[in-house]
C-alpha cells in the first residue's frame, strides 16, 4: 500500500470529478446526469478516504463521512429518480433541457 503516493489518489479523484462534472453539464439524458453526479460524489468519497488515511491527523472520521455520503447519495438518487419518473409520465421525456418549468 505504501507504494502508491497520495497524489495518485487525488489525481484519480480529480479525474473522476471532472468526468462527472462534464457529464452533468453536457448530457441531455437526465439519467446520465444523475449517474454523473454519483461520479462526482464518489470522487469526493475517494478524497475523504484518502485524507482519513494520509491526512495530517489520520483517523476513522473520514471513512465514516464517506459511508454517510454513500447513504445520503443513495437517498438522493432515490428521490431524484422518483421525480424523474413522474416527470416522464407527465411529459414523456427525460431530456434535461426540456425541463425548465421551475423558472416560471
Amino acid at each position: 500500500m505504501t507504494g502508491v503516493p497520495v497524489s495518485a489518489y487525488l489525481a484519480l479523484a480529480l479525474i473522476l470529478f471532472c468526468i462527472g462534472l462534464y457529464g452533468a453539464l453536457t448530457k441531455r439524458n437526465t439519467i446520465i446526469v444523475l449517474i454523473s453526479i454519483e461520479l462526482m460524489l464518489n470522487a469526493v468519497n475517494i478524497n475523504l478516504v484518502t485524507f482519513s488515511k494520509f491526512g495530517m491527523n489520520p483517523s476513522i472520521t473520514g471513512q465514516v463521512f464517506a459511508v454517510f455520503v454513500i447513504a445520503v447519495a443513495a437517498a438522493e438518487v432515490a428521490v431524484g429518480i422518483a421525480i424523474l419518473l413522474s416527470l416522464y409520465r407527465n411529459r414523456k421525456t427525460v431530456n434535461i433541457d426540456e425541463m425548465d418549468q421551475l423558472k416560471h
Partner: protein
Amino acid sequence: MENAWLIPLFPLLSFLILLLFGRQLKEASAYVGILLTLASLVYSVIVLAGRLQGPTFKTEAGWLQIGDLQLTVGFEVNQLNALMLVIVSLVSFLVHTYSKGYMHGDERFPVFYGYLGLFTFAMLGLVISPNLLQTYIFWELVGLGSFLLIGFYFYKESAKQAAKKAFIMTRIGDVGLLIGMVLLFWQTGSFEYDDIFAAVEAGEVSGTMITLTAILIFIGAVGKSGQFPLHTWLPDAMEGPTPVSALIHAATMVAAGVYLVAAMFPLFEASETAMMTVAVIGAVTAIFAASIGLVQTDIKRVLAYSTVSQLGYMMLALGSAGYVAGVFHLMTHAFFKALLFLAAGSVIHAVHTQDIEKMGGLWKKLRLTGPLFLIGTLAISGVPLFSGFFSKDEILISAWTHGNTFLFWLAVIAAFFTAFYMFRLFFMVFAGEARSQMKNVHESPVTMTAPMMVLGILAIVAGYVNTPWFGTFLGDWLVEGNGHGHTEGPVWIMLVATLVSLLGILLAYLMYGRRTMERDWLSSRLPITYSILYNKYFIDEFYERSFVYGAKAVSLFLRFIEVFLVEGLLKVVVGLVQGLGRSGARVQSGQTQTYGMAAFLGLAFLMLIFAITGGYFG
C-alpha cells in the same frame, strides 16, 4: 342692520338647495330662486332705510391668527354699501323673475338658477366686505359666477371660448389688484379699508407707494369693468343667456370695478397721478367703445359696447373727483342698462335672432317691449327728464370743474355717439317695415314683461334722487361724514349735454328712421374708418397676433424642450433599465445545465484569482 350679513346668505341658500334638489324641482327651481332673492331684496331695502337715518354699522370677528397678525371677516353697512345692496338684490330679483319666462324649456333650468344664486351671493358678499381680503375673495367668486354663466351654453364653441376669455382677461386685472393689495398690506399692516385710509391720511405711506398701489388696484377694476385695454372680454361675454348679460355684464359685476374704485376712493384721492390715470382711461374707454358701438349689428353687442362706454363714464367721473357722479351713474346705469338688456332679451325671445339687420317693424308687434326699450334708450342717451340725463350731467360737470377740459369734450362726443347708436339700434329694430320671416312674433309672458316694467319706471324716476332742480338727496347722503365733496357746475354744460344727445337722436332718425339720409353714408365715404370701427379697432386681432402667438411660441419652445430634452433623457434611462432587465431575464432560462456551467465557471474564475493573488482579494 345688525343682521345685514344675512342678505348674501339667502341666494347662497338658493344655490345650495338647487344644487341638491334641482333635479327634482325642475322648473319649480325658479320659485326657490325668486323667493330667496326677494328675501334679500326686502332685507336690503330695510338696511338701506336703516342706514338713511342711522350711522355706519360695522362688525368684525377674528378669522385667522398668524403670529401677531389678526385677519378678520365681517361686514360693513355704509352709504355706498347700502346703496349697492339694494341695486344688486333688486336687479338680481328682477332677473330671477324674468328668467322664469326666458329660460322656460331649457334642459338645465335648475342649474341656471343655481348659478344665478351663486353669483348673487358673491356679489352681495362683495359689496358688504369691510376689508380688502374679503373683497378679493368675493371678487374672485363673482368672476367664477360670471364664467359659469357665460359658458352656460357650453356645447357652443363660441360660448366656451367667451367664458375662457372672460376668465383670463379679468384674471390679468386681478393680478394687479392682488399685488396692490399685498403692497398696501405691507405698507399699512392691515387689509381693513378704515385702517388703510387712516394710514394714508396720516401720511404713513409714501406718495409714490400710494400712486403705485392705487394704479394696481385700478388695474383690477379695469379688468372687471371692461375698461380699455382689457375690455375685449365683455362684448364676447354676450354669448351667455340674455338675463345673465343684464345681471352680470350690465348692472352688477362689471360695476364692481367702479365700486372698488369708489370704495377705495380716499386712496385714489391722495394721488393726483392715480386720479388722472383713472380719468384718462375712463374717458378713452367711453369714446372708444362708443365709436365701436356705432357700427355693430348684433343687438347684444351694441349694448355691450355701450356698457363698456358707460363704465368708462363712471371711471371718468371718479377720476375727476366726482364721487357722487360716479356712484349715481352706476345706479341709474344699472337700472336702464338692465332694462335695455331685458328688453333686448324679449326681442330675441320673440324673433330668435340677434342680428338687427334682420329685424324691423317690431313696434306694432311688441306693444310692451317697444315702449320699454324706448324708455331705456332715452335714459341712456341722456334725454332730459330721464335718469341718465341727471347722472351724465353730474359726470360732465365733474370733468369740467376738475379741469379736465380735453376729457370733458371727449365725454361730450361720446355722449353724442351714445345717443346716435342707441337710436340707430332702436330704429333698426322697431321702426320700418316688418320682415316677412317674422310672422309669429308675439309679446313675451308676464314674468318677463313685469320686471321690465319695474326697471322702466326706475329708469325714469331713479334720476330724481339727485337733481340740480329738486335737491341732491343722494349726493348729500353719500358724502355725509366722509368729505368726498359735491360739485356744482355751470348751467351751459347741461344744455350742451342735451343738445348733443338730441343731435345724435336726430341724426339716427334721419338715417334709420325717416331714411332721408343714406344709411351707408359712413361706410361709403370713409371705408377705412368704417372697417376699423366694425372690426373693433382690431384689438382682438392685435392681442391674437401679439400675446396669443407670443404665448404659443413660448409654449412651442417649451414643448420642444419637454419632448426632446426631458422626455429624451427619461427614455434613455427607461431604455437602459429595461434592457438590463431583459438581458437578466434571458439569463434565467431554466436550463439547469447552463446554471451549473455558470456556477462552475464562476468558481473556476474565483479559484484562478485565488491562485494568482495567493488567497487575498483586493
